[in-house]
């Protein structure tokens, strides 16, 4: 990785070769198979890829919330604000980190909120458990404040309502409130807008941008929607079959995608004004993660496949400053 002349601040989140497996009856799924990424304070990293590529597993691993008992982290390192997250005890994770320094917003706001508790109770939970507000009055004030930050109207009354009394967009705001309540350093948003109307999506994105500007938190935004990624992220990591295949500045990636998979993803997005008779889908299926092929995992579907691609997995090559791709084709680039 090329370093800029003036030493930048160390990254907020540094993930190195993270590996997480799911032990199932039919075999061991290598869901996260050597993922490395970095997020700096104040910036948003987009994590892009198709369903099943391991995006959700990666962020669950970061929070150490892999499904039990099948999921386990088997290798790699995760450093958040200098601390080795994988070495913390479970109690420490819960007390100091989850919800406090690192938090998450899920995809489906209906299922990620407990239906039998009030919004106020659930949004107040992080305050209570991290000792940031003691006593009913203080917690209510804190809840009211954060509900106001996510622009839920009449927070004083609405916090005594239940999730089913909120609309989809409001629910996602409430879930976001839970996540940002204790001003985390890193926020992970797992497809936060895919279940919402387009107009609401725009509002949510604006909200996240504002919160980031206010608090300087780093964000990982998982999405399969390249448009959203373009709008919100400064850098993008493209994931395929358990590994990161391309990372770089968002503009670089969109203008000069180096990995054939990224190119195919971008090519498959229909553009207004473009005359195309057919949508370009990527033929084939991702490989099984129980027994992945030894070479490049995209080779079977790649239009520019070479013999070399099946032999060995390509390392990360530098395509441009800050832009890397794991493709043998990138070796030839200067």
């Amino acid at each position, binding site marked *: 990785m090329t370093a800029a002349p003036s030493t930048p601040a160390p990254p907020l989140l540094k993930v190195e070769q993270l590996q997480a497996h799911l032990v199932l009856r039919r075999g061991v799924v290598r869901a996260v198979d050597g993922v490395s990424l970095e997020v700096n304070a104040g910036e948003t990293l987009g994590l892009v890829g198709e369903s099943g590529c391991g995006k959700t597993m990666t962020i669950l691993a970061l*929070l150490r*919330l892999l499904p039990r008992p099948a999921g386990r982290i088997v290798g790699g390192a995760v450093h958040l604000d200098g601390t080795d997250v994988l070495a913390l005890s479970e109690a420490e994770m*819960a*007390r100091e*980190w*989850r*919800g*406090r320094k690192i*938090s*998450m917003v*899920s995809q*489906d706001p209906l*299922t*990620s*909120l*407990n*239906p*039998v*508790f009030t919004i106020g109770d*659930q949004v107040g*939970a*992080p305050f209570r*458990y*991290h000792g940031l507000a003691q006593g009913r009055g203080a917690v209510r004030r804190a809840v009211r404040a954060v509900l106001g930050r996510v622009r839920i109207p009449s927070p004083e009354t609405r916090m005594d309502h*239940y999730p*089913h*009394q909120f609309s989809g967009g409001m629910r996602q705001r409430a*879930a976001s409130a*839970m*996540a940002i*309540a204790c001003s985390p350093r890193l926020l992970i948003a797992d497809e936060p807008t895919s279940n919402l109307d387009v107009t609401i999506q725009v509002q949510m994105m604006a909200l996240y941008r504002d919160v980031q500007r206010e608090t300087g938190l780093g964000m990982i935004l998982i999405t399969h929607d390249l448009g959203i990624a373009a709008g919100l992220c400064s850098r993008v990591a493209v994931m395929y079959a358990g590994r990161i295949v391309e990372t770089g500045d968002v503009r670089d990636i969109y203008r000069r995608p180096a990995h054939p998979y990224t190119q195919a993803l971008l090519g498959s997005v229909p553009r207004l004004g473009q005359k195309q008779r057919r949508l370009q889908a990527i033929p084939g299926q991702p490989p099984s993660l129980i027994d992945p092929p030894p070479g490049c995992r995209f080779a079977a579907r790649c239009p520019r496949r070479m013999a070399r691609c099946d032999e060995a997995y390509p390392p990360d090559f530098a395509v441009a400053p800050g832009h890397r791709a794991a493709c043998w084709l990138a070796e030839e680039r200067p």
Partner: protein
Amino acid sequence: MLGYLSRRLLLGLVSIMGASVLIFAVSRLSGDPIVLLLPVEAPPALIAETRKAMGLDEPLWTQYLIFAGHAVTGDFGNSYRWQTPALTLVLERLPATIQLAAAALSFSIAIAVPFGVLSAVRRGSWFDTAAKAFALLGQAMPSFWVGLLLILLFAIRLNWLPAFGHGTWAHLVMPAIALGWYPVAAQTRVVRSAMLDVLDSDYIRMGRAVGAPERVLIWKYALRNAAVPLVTLLGVYLAAMLSGAFIVEVIFAWPGVGRTVVEAVFSRDFPVVQAGVFFTSILFVTSNLLVDLSYSAIDPRIRHG
């Protein structure tokens, strides 16, 4: 919410009325109660007179209406055996049955909830296996057998608890356990299954993601959700429990409605049988209504339609 409740209330009333018809109809099945009351050799004049005196010469419809009319005013007739109003006999004994059923229910919930929760949380452990086995066995054991075994062990062999009678809490222990045995087993399975579902849910994962301690997650956030299917099924177990109460009362000589009705059946004391079963029915319908009420208290989605 009010509409929901009043609908349930109405249904309950209809059920009770219908039950009274059913009970009346069945008890007239034998055709002629006179035959059972008077000796076979009774002279026809006496038979006719008794029949007229008891209103049994009227058509069945009229008899039912008279019965219902009296029932509404609380007159179920006099016990053939004791010559006191059947209603009084039944109402005097109803509290004892309610006490027994309530004790059994409390016992069952007090055991089933922790066992079910721990079983789910420690899925696959020896505790889980033992709890599952116990639940399976418990659902196959008749309550009266459990009662007899308890008497054998605790009253006869160990002499810790009294085998019969009523009065102190010591008298309540064995009957409550015997009666609550089947519900404990069934409810443990329900709680376990519900908890397993809930613990897998997104909102529990979200709770973990904001740093809630595991203890709070399980006993506050997860349990409240798991309680919903438990309460839903409570109504079913109540019926089984009221049925079981009849036998348990007989075994432990518990002075409740059940024992009275059983004795009345043997002595062909129809008014008492009718009154007793009718009030058991009312008890059942009422407790179902209470269960419905608590259901809407636990699950706010019901409250708001």
